[in-house]
């Protein structure tokens, strides 16, 4: 990505981003644009560069945040009415880290309300349109963030991935979308959805940019007790050596001095899940997977076939565990302390019930009610407890798979971007879009969505590269083999 320096000013980078944001306004990428402030911040960065200060690795780079990241710039709405007008006094750790490296926040991107959805159609502010076809969905829930990068409005955006919300819109728009290992990146200052699977990640146009963002943002945060000590940067050298193993054929010394490490490594074993290629996957996505497998074989990598029969239950587990956590996390939205409050209030009970009824979208209500169903007495053992046990079996199945391979390559979603309105009337059909992305969250694994060509109708396709916990850097490096 372009950074500001002596020749390129931060103001010019931000101006360009804002101009593009206006040009593509009809895609409804943004819930909020911070034109004036962004330009002011850019001018300050330029002043510091002129003075000879080290401004950071993202000097003057414009970026946008999914509108469920807290920061005082604009209202953090999570695209839900119930947070209308809420201006956060605090800033998410990730936003602070990016700004500390000189990046400039230009706006907030659209999402499915509270990140509940797979198309960005559940936004209170209306859907975001697909970057390649305006009659189709952007994917979701981080639809706005994916389209912002696909249209090259900004070089990177943030997202949240609870069951595919970064990877699926990345695939639908032909960009890179990273869901890090659970606990790699701080969740502090992000509107909670499901605490045991929420992951914070990014959209970029290259693996190199993704590596840079991960190295900036992955770290332990005293404000988020579920963050891991920084493994991304600690193992950085090792992982890059590991992942550059396939370059061993080159006898030429490499410019970056990595040749020695390359020579001693062997080829990479990539797992393909047989059970997933069972006819429910769109033929063009199946073909894209076959093409990439051939490409990897040509480069000397080993392809390993995996049987993972538990994965077909992952979506059912997900739509038990996650609604349960949603029901709990979203109980805080009551109209008392912040955000929207209903006008129809005679007493305190009305404040709660009417605010929540008017403030949540239908999909939010479905998930909260399902969550309360699976947690309620009489159903807890049969649904919630059982799902958490099946979750154990899914985790064990991945552990076994990673004894046989280094990475697993699968589609992100079973279908290319679908038409606006095509699935809004059928919640289960919408959920089925998450069938390949949710198991990764249940197991807390890292996965990167990588572009994998286009359909005959010119719609972007994506695949995901999945690795064991803490293999984030290796995944990003290996993604270059799929280009």
């Amino acid at each position, binding site marked *: 990505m372009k950074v500001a320096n002596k020749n390129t000013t931060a103001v010019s980078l931000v101006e360009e981003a804002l101009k593009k944001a206006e040009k593509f306004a009809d895609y409804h990428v943004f819930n909020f644009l911070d034109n004036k402030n962004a330009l002011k911040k850019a001018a300050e960065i330029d002043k510091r560069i002129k003075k000879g200060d080290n401004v950071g690795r993202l000097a003057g780079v414009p970026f946008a945040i999914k509108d469920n990241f807290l920061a005082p710039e604009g209202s953090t709405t999570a695209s839900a009415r119930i947070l209308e007008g*809420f*201006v956060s*006094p*605090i*800033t998410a750790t990730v936003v602070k880290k990016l700004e500390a490296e000189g990046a400039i926040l230009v706006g907030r991107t659209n999402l499915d309300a509270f990140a509940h959805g797979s198309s960005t159609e559940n936004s209170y502010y209306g859907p975001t349109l697909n970057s390649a076809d305006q009659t189709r969905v952007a994917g979701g829930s981080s639809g706005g963030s994916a389209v912002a990068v696909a249209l090259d409005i900004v070089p990177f955006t943030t997202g949240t991935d609870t069951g595919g919300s970064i990877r699926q819109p990345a695939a639908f728009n032909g960009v890179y979308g990273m869901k890090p290992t*659970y606990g790699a990146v701080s969740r502090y200052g992000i509107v909670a959805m499901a605490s*045991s*699977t929420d992951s914070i990640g990014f959209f970029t146009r290259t693996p190199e940019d993704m590596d840079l963002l991960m190295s900036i943002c992955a770290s332990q945060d*005293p404000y988020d*007790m*579920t963050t*891991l000590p920084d493994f991304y940067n600690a193992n950085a050298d090792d992982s890059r050596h590991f992942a550059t193993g396939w370059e061993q054929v080159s006898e030429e010394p490499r410019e970056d001095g990595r040749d020695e490490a390359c020579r001693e490594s062997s080829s990479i074993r990539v797992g393909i899940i047989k059970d997933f290629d069972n006819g429910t996957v769109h033929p063009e996505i199946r073909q894209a997977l076959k093409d990439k497998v051939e490409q990897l074989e040509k480069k000397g990598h080993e392809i390993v076939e995996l049987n993972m029969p538990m994965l077909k*239950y992952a*979506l*059912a*587990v997900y*739509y*038990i565990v996650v609604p349960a956590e949603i*029901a709990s996390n979203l*109980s805080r939205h*009551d109209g*008392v*302390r*912040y*955000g929207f*409050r209903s006008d129809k*209030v*005679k*007493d*305190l009970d*009305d404040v709660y*019930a*009417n605010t*929540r*009824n008017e403030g949540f979208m*239908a999909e939010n*209500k*479905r998930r*909260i*009610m*399902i969550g*309360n*169903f699976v947690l*309620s007495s009489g159903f807890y053992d*049969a*649904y919630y407890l*059982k*799902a958490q*046990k*099946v979750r*154990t*079996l899914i*985790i064990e199945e991945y552990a076994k798979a990673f004894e046989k391979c280094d990475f697993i390559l699968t589609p992100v979603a079973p279908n290319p971007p679908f038409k606006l309105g095509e699935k809004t009337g*059928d*919640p*289960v059909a919408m*959920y089925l879009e998450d069938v390949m992305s949710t198991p990764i969250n*249940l*197991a*807390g694994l890292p996965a990167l969505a990588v572009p994998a060509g286009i359909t005959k109708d010119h719609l972007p396709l994506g695949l995901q590269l999945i690795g064991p916990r803490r293999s984030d850097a290796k995944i990003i490096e290996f993604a270059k083999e799929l280009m």
Partner: protein
Amino acid sequence: MKITREEIDHLAQLSNFSLSDEEAKSLGVDLENIIKYISQLDELDVKGVEPTYQVFEMENVWRPDEIQPQEADREQLLALTKEQSDHQIKVPKVL
């Protein structure tokens, strides 16, 4: 599994939603379909399997029991509410 109107009303009450009649009906249909889908776990035997509630590898992350300055002060937080008086959040009558 059939979801009765009473069960919908009960879930709406647990969730604190004042659903309209029409909404209760349409949510009832959706919930029934979703529950039908998630009930496919019935075919699995999980005897002897331990549940996994979280995938974070660490337990009991401790910090010193010291008061730390917070990013937002009391007045900033009160400013987010619809109504306040005497530095407290004001709500309509409880009873």
